């Protein structure tokens, strides 16, 4: 017979011990918040404003004094995507770029104004580094403005006042734009759902076995299922507290847009249950705490990085995405993302079902294989 009173008694002793251990509390609650702060700060806002680009205008201008090269650079500057920094025309430009540790530069040739006025082709040189994301922005912007200038030339030449045929209006798939931090919050909640109960239970169950505390407890009416249940309840409580902290930091510090609703509850309950039982299982089937630690890490680390915690799964190669489906944590992070970011409740229900089955299997295995006594 499972006794609620005994579970409560064990819960009281265990939670009190846990709260008295500053180290455990740090890893359970504070560490995930620190992770959110660090990763959130690194990727905050996504873009960091206009790209600095150096420009050397060698254009000598038209006899009338008009310098079309200057106008071109001014237009670029007004685009908002690049900030043009003009460099004296007498300087060795490539050396200048190197001296300023920059790979983004533009050279307007001497004949730019005269060629444009007479309709002869002329070349703007754009310096860039193909591996840098800023170079794409620079060449794209220059390309766009060059097309604009070309079109303008023909409109004037033929006195054409037809407005542009194609124009663009910006829009995104979601009502609000998804930022990295929006994805990061469910990921890191998944991370703490995995690590806190898992590492703890691997450690506790192997240590208790080694120092015969389980034997000691087997002499009381407490059953092993009651013992494990009280640990699960504690990690559910801890997970919910961690969840509130992390979501709070995400929303108030980084302005994350995440949906909060009852769909989250199954994940905050099943997740800690699953990993507490899995930790117990690892601690039970291994011979000593050292082996348990190693096996625990082997089970935990792939999940920590490959189940969509720090990086979106979609950014990974296909074989890793396929592999992720055998990691139990995948169904936690995917489910949390479905609820919090995409609002995909059907997807979340499937994740809950898969998670429920895995949890049940692991729980039964852990209780069956776990021995109070020896034979």
């Amino acid at each position, binding site marked *: 017979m499972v*006794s609620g*009173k*005994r579970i*409560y*008694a*064990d819960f*009281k*002793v*265990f939670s*009190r*011990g*846990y709260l*008295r*251990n500053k180290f455990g509390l740090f890893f359970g609650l504070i560490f995930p918040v620190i992770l959110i702060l660090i990763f959130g700060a690194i990727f905050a806002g996504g873009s960091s404003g206009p790209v600095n680009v150096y420009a050397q205008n060698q254009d000598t201008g038209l006899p009338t004094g008009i310098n079309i090269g200057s106008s071109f650079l001014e237009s670029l500057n007004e685009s908002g995507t690049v900030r043009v920094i003009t460099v004296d025309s007498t300087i060795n430009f490539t050396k200048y770029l190197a001296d300023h540790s920059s790979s983004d530069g533009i050279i307007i040739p001497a004949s730019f104004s005269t060629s444009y006025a007479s309709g002869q082709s002329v070349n703007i040189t754009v310096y860039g580094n193909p591996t840098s994301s800023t170079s794409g922005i620079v060449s794209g912007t220059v390309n766009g403005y060059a097309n604009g200038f070309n079109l303008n030339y023909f409109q004037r030449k033929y006195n054409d006042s037809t407005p542009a045929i194609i124009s663009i209006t910006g829009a995104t798939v979601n009502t609000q734009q998804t930022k990295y931090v929006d994805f990061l919050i469910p990921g890191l909640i998944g991370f703490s759902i995995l690590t806190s109960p898992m590492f703890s239970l691997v450690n506790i169950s192997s240590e208790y076995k080694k*120092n*015969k*505390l389980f*034997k*000691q407890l*087997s*002499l*009381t*009416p*407490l059953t092993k299922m009651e013992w494990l249940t009280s640990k699960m309840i504690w990690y559910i409580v801890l997970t919910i507290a961690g969840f509130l902290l992390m979501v709070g930091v995400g929303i108030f510090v980084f302005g994350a847009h995440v949906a909060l609703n009852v769909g989250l509850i199954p994940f905050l309950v099943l997740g800690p249950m699953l990993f507490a039982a899995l930790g117990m299982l690892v601690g039970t089937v291994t011979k000593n705490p050292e082996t348990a630690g190693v096996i625990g890490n082997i089970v935990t680390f792939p999940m920590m990085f490959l189940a969509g915690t720090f990086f979106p799964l979609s950014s990974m190669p296909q074989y890793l995405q396929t592999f992720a489906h055998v990691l139990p944590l995948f169904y936690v992070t995917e489910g949390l993302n479905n609820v919090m970011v995409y609002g995909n409740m059907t997807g979340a229900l499937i994740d809950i079902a898969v998670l429920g089955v895995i949890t049940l299997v692991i729980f039964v295995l852990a209780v069956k294989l776990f021995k109070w*006594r*020896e*034979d």
Partner: protein
Amino acid sequence: MLPIEVTSLQKNYGSLKAVDGVSFTVKEGEVFGLLGPNGAGKTTTIEIMEGLRERDSGDVKVLGLDPWTNGYSLHKKIGVIPQEFTFMEKTTPREAINYYADLFNIKVNADEILKDVLLEESAKTHFENLSGGQKRKTGLALSLVNSPDLLFLDEPTTGLDPNARRAIWEVVRGLKAKGKTIILTTLYLDEAQQLCDRVAIMDHGHIVAMGTTEEIIQQHGSGERLTIHGSQQLADYIKGNTELLVDYDTAKSEIVIPLKKKIDALAALAAAEQSGLDWGEIQTRQDSLDDVFVKLVSEPVEEVETLPEQKKKSWRR
């Protein structure tokens, strides 16, 4: 019904016969000691009685129950401290007692239990900060929570300093005075002599001697002996002029004469005096429990630290 009845108990670990045909009974209110070196089978025997280990064969009844199959109900009636008792690090003895009381679903007076085990001053200290002796006392306290009449103490004082050992002895005597039946295992002869009504000496899975310490000494000891410090010549003289058996220990220059009666000592001394030869210190001594122990237990016993005082009488000429 006796609290404990063990008949032909056997337990093997692979090819090792840890317990090999052990039988004994324990009476109500008795303190019964299993004495023996490490590896003698004491812990295996006590753990089988506690229901922590399954036996291979033989019959074990504890309070009339089979401890393995009825472990869950038996555990509500007995108190146990396993060897090297440990508990959750951040829990105080008082909290531990209340935790056990909740598990057993009974109300206890934690202060009273703490007083019984002389642990009142450390009631609020976290387990990890307790001394070795205080930790064992916490174990004792927990074994008393369900007010059992039968207690199992597996090496309750191993590794403790002499003061801590005496404090534990104090507690055990107190429990005995309250009429509890106690089974304890120990490596220490003095502990067995101090605490136990009856002792079983175990070696290699067998009981090699059992009874009160006096009975064991009588059965397995060599009786009283007279030793005289002197020469081989003197030994030969005594041998030639009395009817006594005389041995000579060349290494110690000692004449050893087993005494059937006390009066034999006088005859030996009279002969020595008559010989006109020089003789030194004389004494009579009897085998102590440790003499018997060393004789009975085949392997050298490293763990025995304190040897009890020998029963010694000596005269000077």
